[in-house]
């Protein structure tokens, strides 16, 4: 994806990319047509952001930077939405 847009953000959620945040992230990614890929800081491989197996497989903890890239008609909106979700701590308020 040479001309894909890319964004990154630090995970600030208390527990990192655990089950529930991962489920939210993949659900959100699936709502876009764009091909969306994700990788964690220090890792080279980009994985499909719509796959729970792949996203949980990253095993990202709090404080890690997460990178997104998207390619497709709604790529910009997709990146905006995904970064927003991470920024808002996945809309979870640590109890």
């Amino acid at each position, binding site marked *: 994806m040479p001309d894909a847009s890319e964004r990154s953000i630090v995970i600030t959620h208390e527990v990192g990319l655990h089950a529930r945040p991962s489920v939210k992230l993949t659900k959100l990614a699936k709502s876009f047509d764009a091909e969306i890929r994700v990788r964690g800081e220090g890792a080279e491989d980009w994985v499909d952001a719509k796959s729970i*197996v792949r996203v949980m497989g990253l095993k990202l903890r709090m404080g890690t930077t997460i990178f997104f890239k998207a390619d497709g008609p709604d790529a910009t909106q997709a990146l905006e939405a995904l970064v927003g979700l991470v920024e808002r701590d996945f809309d979870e308020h640590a109890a």
Partner: protein
Amino acid sequence: MSTRPERAFPAQVASEGLAIGRIALRRMRSLAAIAKGTAEEEGARLEAARLAAAAQLERLIDRAEEEAAAILEFQSALLGDDELLGPVRRLIAEGEAAAAAWQRILDQQAADYQAAEDEYFRARALDLADLRDRVVELLAGGSEDETAAEQGAIYVGVDLAPSRFLELDWESYRGGAVVRGSSAGHVAILARARGIPLVVGLAATESMLIDGAEAILDAEAGQLIQDPSAETRARYQRRAAEREVEARAQAAHLGKPALTRAGERVVTYVNVDDPRALPAVDPATCDGVGLTRTEFLFSGEGGLPGEGRQFAAYKALLQWAQGRPVTIRTLDAGGDKPIAGLTLDGESNPFLGLRGLRLSLARPDVFRVQLRALARAAVEGDLKVMLPMVTRPQELDATRALFRKAVSELVAEGIPAAMPKLGMMVEVPAAALNIAAFDADFYSIGSNDLVQYVTAAGRDCEAVSDLYDPLEPGVLELVHRVAEHGRLTGREVSLCGDMASDPRYLAALLDAGLRAVSVAPARLARVKAQIAAYG
């Protein structure tokens, strides 16, 4: 009436009670019995099982509490992920059976999680195993649980997982009998809390059991009687009628405070082993929670629980209690309750080893998380925190210092926190004998351990079970001693072991001066009725 001869299968009582009905034989079929089909047939089988599993999970998610729902949603998402299903479908196309292919890929995934550095991710391997088994059961044709049970069915199967227990409609099923499991197991705890008769360790194989046969589940003596004779049936019907009368008489006491015949008030708390059993209990029927075993948080899925998860669980208990006191015991791991990654393996005598508060003080990193969660919960209601296995006053003092530190750290972080009342379990004879040296806010006698330590007879050792006697004068003397100390110093002394729930022992405890007990919720009515008849 059947012409087959009566047949009784012995079992252990996990939750006391009696049920007369018909055997509903569940999921005893094995995968081996299912012939492998063509690649297309196996593919279609997988797809059907996948959709059925997804539908089951959706129903469970609707009913689950937040913590459990998060895990179920993860499993549900996995079922819709082609990255997972692709390899399974490829194996099936290459000629493997659906169940074998599914198991292979799920096991690979689980192994990947098992190798993770982070405890949380390691624990996800259990979710994958859970999902694997759910789909495998469906592939084996085991979806019959989902069809509504006939009225009066008795659930008979190899095993009953806690999640499955919670799914079943216990209005239709009158009780259960399973081949595996132990009376100390998790399902036994859930069944006792809800008053559902259950036996475990059933000595029967599938070929001996007949689906739909008339049966009596005798969870008093511990047996399942298949095809009972007219005589046996009549005998149990009389017994069931007696129980009914007893239950009705006891239920009349449930809504009222417990008073002895002389009008003396006895505080009656409930024990909480698993908060999932609580919605069935009306808090108005008790004086609060006398014991919460926090091991439920540590032994389940998810590895060692974080502060947020613990806080949420404690807060939910306080909300349920509606202002009544809630006693939460800090982690009592060790002894017969090992926790992977926390308790020591290979202790020659775990009951006398690093357990209870000893373990918590030896693992300040783990203890600190629990103390912080408890300090945060203390602002949400009337919280009492109880320490297990206290042996010396210094341990109590050390814990109080750790607690104060946790509170001041939280306050400095701007998080509301307070110091709860801090009490101790009295279960070590040295502590019971020296009780005046312990400056605790309250005392709670842990009779299960106290009896075994005083009599030097293990509670899990059948050969000396006659010595494990709660009515041993030495035991009652210690109960009296602690109760007297509480009376003189104005501090509450309760008893939260099985002894209080047992009709054979309650009167002796009241004789010893005890005026507070904590019992299983399903035993509350009987205990209150017995108190009303005392004196």
